[in-house]
């Protein structure tokens, strides 16, 4: 049982995480949740990536350099003002760790202040369609409620589908997984 203990690989992320999975609080601690002011003005990627692992696709795919990563092992940091909300990082991330929260779009589209558009990377069947009702879960598979699918992005380049759902704003950072309602 030579590899039971992994003392040397205690990495920052694992120290932060107490629940066994990332919580919004964990993300706040490391600066992965933007200020309220930013959220009102920009679409923001919420990146659940707290470990120093050698992985760069989100950084490589970003057209505006909004994801900063000096070496392949650094954790991604977002320059919020530089993000255009294009969602490429959410589609590229091998860990499916990125959701995009877009409040400016929800305000413009639905003329409401209490909604958010959240883009969720999805690789299961059946793939939801526009107008479908889905059940929304948080990171610990706790039920948040129901939501409607606003649109679905399918890019053959990534294979990961992006399901855009409209949720109450209070779920914006919590919504992480969906299931099609049958």
């Amino acid at each position, binding site marked *: 049982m030579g590899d039971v203990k992994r003392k040397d690989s205690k990495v920052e992320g694992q120290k932060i995480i107490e629940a066994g*999975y990332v919580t919004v609080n964990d993300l706040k601690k490391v600066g992965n949740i933007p200020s309220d002011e930013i959220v009102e003005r920009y679409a923001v990627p919420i990146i659940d990536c707290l470990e120093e692992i050698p992985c760069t696709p989100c950084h490589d795919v970003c057209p505006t350099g909004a994801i900063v990563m000096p070496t392949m092992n650094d954790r991604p940091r977002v320059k919020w003002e530089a993000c255009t909300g294009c969602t490429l990082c959410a589609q590229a991330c091998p860990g499916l760790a990125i959701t995009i929260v877009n409040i400016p779009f929800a305000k413009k589209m639905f003329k409401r202040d209490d909604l958010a558009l959240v883009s969720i990377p999805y690789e299961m069947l059946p793939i939801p369609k526009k107008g479908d009702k889905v059940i929304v879960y948080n990171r610990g598979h706790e039920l948040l409620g129901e939501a409607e699918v606003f649109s679905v992005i399918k890019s053959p380049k990534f294979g990961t589908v992006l399901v855009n759902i409209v949720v109450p704003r209070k779920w914006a950072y919590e919504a992480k997984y969906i299931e099609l309602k049958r």
Partner: protein
Amino acid sequence: MSQEIDKRIYEHPILKFERRRPVYILFEDKRIKAYENETVAAALYAAGVIQFSYSAKYHRPRGPFCMIGKCSQCLMRVNGVPHVRTCITPVEDGMTVEFEHGHDAELPTPKQPIHVEKKNIEYDVVIIGSGPAGLSAAIQAARAGAKVAVLDQSPVLGGQLIKQTHKFFGTKESFAGTRGVDIAKMLVDEVKDYDENIDIYPSTQAIGYFRREKVLVAFQTKSLGKYNLLNLKGKSYVIATGAMERSLVFPGNDLPGVMGAGAAQTLMNVFGIRPAEEPLIIGAGNVGVIIAYQAAQAGIKVKAVIDILPKTAAYLVHAAKIRRMGIPILMRHTVQEAYGNGKVEGATVYEVDDKFRKVPGSEKNIEIDGIWLAVGLTPSVEVLDLMGAQIKFVPELGGYVPLRTPFLETTVSNVFVAGDASCIEEASTAMMEGKIAGASAVLNIGFKNDKVEKERKNAVEWLDMFRSSPHYARIKQGLQKVLVQG
């Protein structure tokens, strides 16, 4: 007489299973439908056959464990030929497949005569293994102008990349963000661009090595009953034989339905066959959680992923994928036994305390129809041992591994190692090691090529950077124990 069990997957979120012409095989007098690009083992599994053999002494039923030609649990008599590895033998129309009962069946009873053709061929570089390491090595060697042979015991090139449906970590240089299946295609295409330099030997097993003559003996199955006995003389060798999945000791671990997680992955992702409907996965490291995720993609309901450790050793983002889906992850849990009548039907699991002792009264029975073991891998170093390379036991690297120079030369001159055979790591590091070994294999025997030399330098630097992640601290430590100067 209609047995219409069909475990094939017809809809998948990521993969499209291209099944060629349907054919029929005879298994113990039952007619079973198969497709031309399936192996015998895959076709049997698709038809619901999970017992393939019996143990020699007690005649216990056994099923395949590895599905990649490394174990011996899928050996059957095919067309009268005994001890055929059904997991790497493609189906042919009208094939007969029978059980072997222990060792009572050593001699062939062929329907057709057996042909063996002997060939002696010389190469600059002989590479064993066509996974990410072997193919990357072949590309570098061919780029320098060398004549290269690539051997693989599988009929298909690409090693274990062909079943990796997830997007890879790493950087652009290691095709990060691309799925393993697609990386396999890219590497195979690149190898084919060098078809004047590279000879591919699929379905070929290395079986011996003459040290003084430096000749490798290999056995190629052209089709059942038709074989080539190859004496291959290489000026240099790259051994990229990969790894073998570990088993775990518990009563019932040999029941059909208990298999390596990689074996389940081969069935699900290469052949599009559900290995089980409700499996238990043991091991919540990267392999365990990734396979749980891929099972969900294949429409399989994973009953639980258990691990004896208090915290997962997986990348948190991989573990998070199944956590948010609600697939139960039971940490501090291990298996007591598996039970079932001729096949696995259930398992008893229990909780452990900080000292890995059983928590009294914590036993639970879980009803399942498969157990997938994701408890680590062991480097396949048999050929290196045969060649005389010095081997050392280094737990950090997965077990017995060869000593090597920074350019991956073993203690035998001009014999190189790359990929999981050198150290259990990643496909991306295997590609980089393949580049280094392939480049060195040609540069060492007199080829000159600036581009290849530069690629080698870049690959060495990339690996240094990759392994500076805290996740690879342990591997880095292990590598110090096997490093020798060239």
